[in-house]
């Protein structure tokens, strides 16, 4: 479990993280979203003690990370794939990391096998592709078999097979009861992987809710209906906050009314229904709507995402 209270980080006059409170629960994948510069990486760095909070606290498993007797056993972290000396081989890198905790060759070989690095383990990291660097970073995060995993953009630079592998791995880790905090800019990937979402914007939390709730709350739930008498249906379900939009294909999109009420009303009136579909929109839509409210950031965010 990761627990932050009033967590704040200022660099001079710029506030990167602005007094945020959140809890990352075990047994599920928590997605960490936000435009570049929203404070995700800074927050992750504060969790593992690389940056010192200006105010507030953050704990892992109930205590500050720095006071852990076996940090790698508690938290595995991938902050940037390049947190490796490029002149060292992948094997020696992992061996040196593990040595601090008395974790030996067997476990190093195990994580090399798990991340599919066998063929390059003896090569110096200098020549690694971005994808191999990511795999090495993930191997390092798994080294101590930790109960908490913090992965910043783990699928960055991976091929589709690698992306699916990370998804399966991350889901599996959560299924084993581990705490997983994951950031990514790939919304479709996040929608498939995460259970819970924390959305940051300009250092503040915009949303902290299950993925489904974030999507439906932000986009609103709409229902697509096809019938032979749209005017009559509209009259049947009319009420406060109900809107009906006629679509070009003859169907209609209704919002502010549940599919149950539409179905029941139509059935009672003997009106035939040809289609009744709940449309919840995508996480990407929800994300863009949420972060677009951060007006100052809109242009920057759009630029950086496009990069």
């Amino acid at each position, binding site marked *: 479990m990761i627990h932050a209270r009033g967590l704040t980080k200022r660099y001079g006059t710029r506030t990167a993280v602005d007094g945020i409170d959140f809890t990352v629960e075990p047994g599920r994948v928590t997605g960490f979203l936000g435009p570049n510069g929203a404070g995700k990486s800074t927050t992750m760095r504060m969790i593992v003690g690389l940056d010192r909070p200006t105010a507030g606290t953050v704990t892992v498993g109930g205590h500050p990370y720095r006071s852990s007797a*076996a940090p790698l056993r508690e938290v595995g972290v991938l902050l940037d794939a390049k947190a490796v000396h490029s002149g060292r081989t992948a094997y020696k890198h992992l061996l040196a990391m593990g040595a*601090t905790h008395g974790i030996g060759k067997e476990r190093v070989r195990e994580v090399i096998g798990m991340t599919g690095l066998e063929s390059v383990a003896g090569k110096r990291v200098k020549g690694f592709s971005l994808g191999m660097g990511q795999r090495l970073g993930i191997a390092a995060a798994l080294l101590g078999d930790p109960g908490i995993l913090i992965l910043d953009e783990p699928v960055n630079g991976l091929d589709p097979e690698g992306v699916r592998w990370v998804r399966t791995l991350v889901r599996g880790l959560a*299924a084993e009861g581990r705490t997983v905090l994951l950031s990514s800019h790939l919304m479709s990937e996040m*929608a498939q992987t995460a259970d819970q979402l924390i959305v940051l914007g300009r250092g503040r939390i915009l949303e902290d809710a299950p993925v489904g709730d974030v999507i439906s709350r932000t986009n609103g739930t709409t229902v697509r209906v096809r019938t032979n008498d749209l005017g009559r249906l509209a009259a049947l379900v009319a009420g406060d906050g109900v809107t009906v939009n006629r679509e070009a294909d003859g169907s209609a999109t209704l919002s502010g009314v549940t599919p149950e009420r539409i179905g029941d009303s139509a059935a009672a009136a003997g009106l035939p229904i040809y289609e009744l579909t709940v449309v919840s929109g995508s996480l990407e839509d929800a994300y863009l709507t949420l972060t677009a409210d951060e007006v100052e950031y809109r242009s920057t965010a759009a630029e950086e995402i496009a990069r």
Partner: protein
Amino acid sequence: MSAATTHRVPTHALTTAHIAPDARLTFPRILRSEWIKLTSLRSTAWSLAMIVLTGVGLSLLLAATMDSAGLPDGPSVGFALSTVTLGVMFGQIIAAVLGVLAISGEYSTGMIHSTLTAVPTRLPVLAAKSVVLFALVTLVGLATLLGSWAGTYPMFAAEGIAVGLTEPGFLLAVLGAAVYLGLTAVFALGIGTVLRSAAGGVATVLGVILGLPLFLPLAALAFDWVVDVAPYLFTSAGESMASIPADLPAGAEAERGAPLAPWLGGVVVLVWTGVSLALAGLSLRRRDA
């Protein structure tokens, strides 16, 4: 949506990991980690090989041409030492670069993030790096000096001025020179930790060990007190460590600016190194990684 995807548990069973139940941080383990790090870089092997090659090479070269410089009448510990320790002059530059790189290489590559997440209290990393660097550079320095002595011995013997290791003061001076090299690397590690950059670190350390001894004689022309300070420079104190105690007539005062006694030279170099490490410790603890 997550609920719609099927979640397969990965085939690799993470829970049966090969990790000993007592896996946690201890200082000997951090030492071992730093040893693996230092010895798994090609730059370390190159640097150490350079210390040996230049050290032994320069001594052999000097011994081969020593008659042109004028030989002592008989065996002289001072003369032999000046030949054997010649390579320290060059070796200290390599030791300094190695010391700076031991930490600046972590900052430039991002490795420091991995290092400090593994050891979040940070100071044990600095301590372990110091111990490992000191041990490795001192041992290689000692091997170089003994190699220089052994290599030049036949040439000295041919002139009838050979000096054995057991000659009073000789081995201690050789040891002093080796320890000086080791401390130079640790001093440089401290500076590198404060500055976090290879270029800045190397420039600063070379400024201290090479620049100050060049600059001070000039400064002494303007400020008289500089003469008294000169023996306490890092390099001057290091030269004292690698020398035999001066034979002063009983009751005589050493003249101003005379080299320090070997033991005092050692203390002075230790103080320089200690100050460097203290600044490094403060920087490492206080600043964000």
